[in-house]
């Protein structure tokens, strides 16, 4: 029972981290109806940024978080200005392909800059464990949980309670109406990409601490897609619920089912997609997604 609780805690931390990555994805989708396939690569770059700040520059954890967030914000802005702006008004497929292109460029640049190596900064969040009754939680797990949860809360509050967040929600509703009300839609798009970059970087920082930064971190980041779809593409609370569902079910499945499998493992890499397929079969728009009624 205790081990199960322990697992649930680990899944909780993972799940909130997935939710952070998925948050950026959902915000871009809400504002501009673009599916940002490069979100997984934002996560990968976040891991490498964190490695640079924590291991190479020897910054403290909180400074590194701020630095990674700032880099993510700038990266998002640059990408939106250079690559995504020409895609406004183009068919949706072209915009999606452009995000794929961005992802490829980011993966190539990361390989070039960090040599495609497996960069480890394990233990920077502390190696001790905190005991809570019979549970003993590693410090890095607690740090992961706190950082991710804080990020989700901060960006949700920003979205719900600031004026610019209101502008973003208005743009999500109808960009032409928003524009005629005096909202700078271009600014909103830029901001959405900045948030995506920042959330990706934070998720990457946290995930990289646990499993190391490498080009394949982007595949872990891609679980954010599964999270976003399960939660429903338009919903920010949905992201959190789906993130927790997937994080916990993934870790339980990989602990209890992996030993039954012939090669004894690897279920964690596909389980989120299995959950996604099952949920999509029964609820095509996810837990909290808007069911769209289409007209010709």
């Amino acid at each position, binding site marked *: 029972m205790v081990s199960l609780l322990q697992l649930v805690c680990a899944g909780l931390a993972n799940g909130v981290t997935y939710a952070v990555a998925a948050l950026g994805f959902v915000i871009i989708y809400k504002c501009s109806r673009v599916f940002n396939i490069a979100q997984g690569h934002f996560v990968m770059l976040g891991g490498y940024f964190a490695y640079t700040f924590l291991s190479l520059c020897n910054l403290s954890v909180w400074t590194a978080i701020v630095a990674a967030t700032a880099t993510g914000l700038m990266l998002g802005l640059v990408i939106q200005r250079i690559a995504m702006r020409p895609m406004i008004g183009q068919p949706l497929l072209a915009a999606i392909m452009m995000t794929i292109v961005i992802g490829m460029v980011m993966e190539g640049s990361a390989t070039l800059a960090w*040599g495609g190596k497996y960069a480890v900064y394990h233990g920077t969040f502390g190696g001790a464990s905190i005991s809570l009754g019979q549970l003993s939680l590693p410090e890095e797990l607690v740090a992961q949980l706190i950082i991710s949860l804080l990020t989700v809360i901060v960006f949700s509050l920003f979205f719900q309670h600031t004026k610019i967040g209101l502008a973003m929600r208005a743009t999500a509703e109808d960009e032409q109406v928003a524009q005629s009300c005096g909202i700078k839609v271009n600014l909103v798009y830029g901001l959405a990409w900045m948030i995506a970059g920042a959330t990706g970087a934070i998720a990457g920082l946290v995930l990289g601490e646990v499993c190391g930064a490498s080009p394949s971190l982007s595949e872990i980041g891609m679980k954010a897609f599964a999270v976003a779809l399960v939660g429903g593409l338009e919903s920010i609370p949905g992201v959190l619920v789906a993130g927790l569902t997937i994080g916990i079910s993934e870790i339980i499945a990989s602990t209890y089912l992996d030993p039954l499998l012939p090669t004894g493992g690897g279920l964690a890499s596909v389980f989120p997609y299995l959950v996604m*397929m099952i949920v999509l079969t029964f609820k095509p728009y996810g837990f909290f997604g808007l069911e769209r009624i289409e007209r010709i």
Partner: protein
Amino acid sequence: MQWDLPCGVFFDNYADDIALCRTKAQKFLLISFFAFLFVLPLLISDRWLSRLVLIGINIVSLHGLNLLTGMCGQISLGHAGFMAVGGYASAILCNMGLPFWIVFPAAGLVSGLFGLAFGLPSLRVKGFYLAMATLAAQFLVTWLILQAYKITGGADGLSVPRPIIGRMTLMSNKSYYYLVATVTCLVTFFAYNLARTKTGRAFVAVRDNDLAAEVMGICLWKTKLVAFFVGCIFAGWGGALLVHYYRFASPEQFTLMDSIMYLGMLIVGGMGSTLGPIFGAAFFKLVEECNMIIVSILAKWFPAAAPQLPASIGLIGYALIVGLFLVFEPRGLAHRWTIVKNYYRLWPFSYW
């Protein structure tokens, strides 16, 4: 049949009107093209031949992706996964000792059925949701290959024999080239004709607006599933040809990056046009060659970064090319080719 088309439609029966070769010039060009394909191995070196074989294999699987994504509008991020299914099916069946002429169609069929299973969500979800379902297919295939290591060899890969047709083993590049060229021509012919049938038109209607298509009496689920089935059969054949060519099958040959690369090739070539896959595959091979030259030059200038240069420059180069095409020529090389053709046809007059 005339040499050149007159200005106007003068066909007096339907058979002439829908014929593939409508003028003598076209017939002549087609026959000389086949003759050229036939004598080509005698003229070029083995290295170029292997490039041609790889282009042919890519064309076969790109035709599948073109039917699925370009014509029917169902974005597939798992094309390499579908190729892997065909490749492994062919490899395993061949290792069991079945003759190649049974194995090859069977591999296509297995891949097609697998694609059908992952196409089923397309009945309920579309657009990005479907793209994610195919992405799931990609990850699942890799995972299944690793899990079923007793049959597939897992991460170590599986050695595959070269195909035996009749009493001939296609060991040399030359003989394999003839196999690939035949399959490529047949698949191209089939894809070209499919685009002109009722089903092909239904694909385009579903891509442009599936709701409107349904209202006009097109059976959506049948059309989408046919697109998945045929597209994945072609993918499976491409995968089968690939593993038999390398005499080796491993999950490394069919990664997510490959799936994305195929989408990129399709965009550069031109989506929704039968010529697109051919242009795309050939152009990307060209880019690959240029890349190798650029990398070798850069490696001299920056020796420190030399080990990671090939992978990273390759990725960045491909991505930039696809990005530039998206911004400046979203309809791809096939559209450019149409413009050139029209210019030639109308030559002294510039309008059309």
